[in-house]
């Protein structure tokens, strides 16, 4: 069962090209035709280079950015252009964990108030004592034990990992059904990344929360995502079960990402595919397939025709003309 459904979503940011003669309005194609679903209780990893539109996608799902076109359904209800009370209700069910735990907590608030804030905003939790009880519970669920020793501290007295746990606790008090985790560990010390990942995996197990896990690093998701979506320049180019994507990648971009991933067993090491050139800027997208200027298996028609989103194997979708053709598969 799908909990969030996204259809052909687009988000353009207007920018102005500073030209000497005229002001020409241009658009950053942050999200450019994204279609996918997040299923009940699954961990879907969204992988892509920085700047490909992952954060914008998460913000748009929560209504923090307004979609330019396309549709978002939450539990079957369209929420794309939600406002006011609907939006507030949505933000009770979908919670977000941000990339930067150093910036996402108000430095003037105590931990207890930070975690109680969502309850206050939604008028939940009853009396002050009852609310505190829920705060303590959420802190302990997020792995901050004993919670009592954190309640009266300020964010700057905590480490990065502890702060990220506070953010997670703040999301948990509302008992959400969906968690959007936007690179939650990329700014943390390598040594504590695994702890936070384990925490998220536990939450999925114990509470059945659906998690959209955003990362620029395929390595961090390999062992805990159910499915992987690979994003390139504002579009999902490949989507499938984790094992499928890792073992039988179809899109040349996914193959390139996998080939540079460190592999524990050197016998399994693939030949490294180093992509040519830079990621094109999302203002002037390449014609045809957006990946064609850097594609190692590019064909003439790739520059003309945008590949359609097709099911290449059962439950495995890809947007590539050449994927699955005999001469490209090893």
């Amino acid at each position, binding site marked *: 069962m799908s909990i969030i459904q996204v259809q052909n979503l687009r988000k353009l940011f207007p920018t102005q090209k500073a030209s000497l003669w005229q002001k020409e309005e241009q658009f950053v194609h942050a999200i450019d035709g994204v279609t996918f679903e997040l299923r009940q209780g699954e961990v879907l990893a969204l992988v892509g280079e*920085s700047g490909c539109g992952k954060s914008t996608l998460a913000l748009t799902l*929560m209504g*923090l950015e307004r979609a330019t076109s396309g549709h978002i359904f939450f539990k079957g209800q369209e929420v794309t252009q939600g406002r006011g009370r609907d*939006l*507030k209700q949505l*933000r*009770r069910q979908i*919670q*977000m964990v*941000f990339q*930067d*735990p*150093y*910036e*996402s*907590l*108000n*430095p*003037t*608030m105590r931990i207890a108030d930070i975690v109680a*804030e*969502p309850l206050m*905003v*939604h008028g939940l939790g009853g009396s002050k004592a009852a609310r505190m009880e829920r705060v303590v519970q959420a802190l302990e669920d997020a792995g901050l034990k004993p919670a009592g020793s954190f309640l009266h501290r*300020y*964010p*700057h*007295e905590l*480490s*990065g990992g502890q702060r990220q746990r506070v*953010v997670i606790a*703040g*999301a948990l008090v*509302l008992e959400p059904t969906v968690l959007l985790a936007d690179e939650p560990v*990329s*700014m*943390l*010390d*390598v040594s504590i990344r695994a702890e936070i990942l384990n925490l998220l995996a536990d939450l999925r197990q114990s509470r059945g929360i659906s998690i959209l896990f955003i990362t*620029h690093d395929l390595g961090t998701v390999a062992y805990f995502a159910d499915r992987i979506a690979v994003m390139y320049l504002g579009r999902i180019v490949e989507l499938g079960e984790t094992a499928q994507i890792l073992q039988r990648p179809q899109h040349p971009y996914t193959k390139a990402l996998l080939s540079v991933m460190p592999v524990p067993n050197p016998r399994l090491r693939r030949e490294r595919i180093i992509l040519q050139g830079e990621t094109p800027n999302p203002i002037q997208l390449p014609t045809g397939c957006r990946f064609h200027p850097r594609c190692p298996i590019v064909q003439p028609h790739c520059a003309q025709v945008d590949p359609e989103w097709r099911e290449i194997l059962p439950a495995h979708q890809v947007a590539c003309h050449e994927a699955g053709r005999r001469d490209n598969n090893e």
Partner: protein
Amino acid sequence: MSAVITSKAPPPATGFLGFWHTFRRNKMAVVGLFMLVMAILTALFAPQLAPYDPKAITRVTIEDIYARPSAAHWLGKDDAGRDVLSSFIYGSRVSLIVGFFASMISIFIGGVIGIVAGFYGGRVENLLMRFTDVMLVIPDLPLTVVIVALTKPSLFNIIFVIGIVGWTGTARLVRSQTLAVKERKFVLRARAIGAGNLHIIRYHILPLVLPLLVVNTVLIISLAILNESTLSFLGLSDPTTLSWGQMLNFAFTRGAMSAGAWWVLVTPGLGIVWLVLGCTLLGQGLEQVLNPRLEAHHLAAGPGMVARRLGD
């Protein structure tokens, strides 16, 4: 790769005790506070401190006019034969009352306009900042003089007029701080948990604008005190109250200069200087005390920023 770099600066102590701890070690702030407290105590206990009642009707002989300082009258007498020291002590009340209440009005107007303009942006901001710019280019003094002259120069009117003239600097300062604060990630997080604009302003914008507002208040107080003195010096004072500016006005208009009665001039002048200096010292000291704390909050975000550059 994105190892967490912890800042070397000691974490700022939090709460009032932490604030007091840093405050105590700032000489400027302590001296300024001392000067202000002295003035406030003088105003509060004026009836106990003043050797004579400046309002009492006394019989005046020719010797009493501009009488030199003596053992009975330490600061001599004025043109009406009243004790200058007593007038001076009572006069501190007006300066402080006007300074305090007028600056409250200024800070309130400036704070609201600054936060609303900075937070909501767009046309609201355009309109409010245009208005602020217009108020800014109109010179304060002529404007206050005109308004006070047109209305009755009562204590209330003077406070009101000084208050509604002096908010432009505050509005701009608060707006720019609001602009900076609202872009921070914790504001986005507040939106993500469903918080509305009023909640965000109350819990996420205001607390980070407040230190700036406190510093600004002290400086606005000194401006208001100066304004009041200027108005009374120009003869626009509440005739029923005694103020330092008014003492100066009487001294100038009633021949203290030619009589060589320097005590009538120097005394209120020094009083004004004392208050303005006290406010300025306290304000600048507070700025030094509060700013590193604000920066420390920024530092709390610093390692993340470094990590972003390394990691992304």
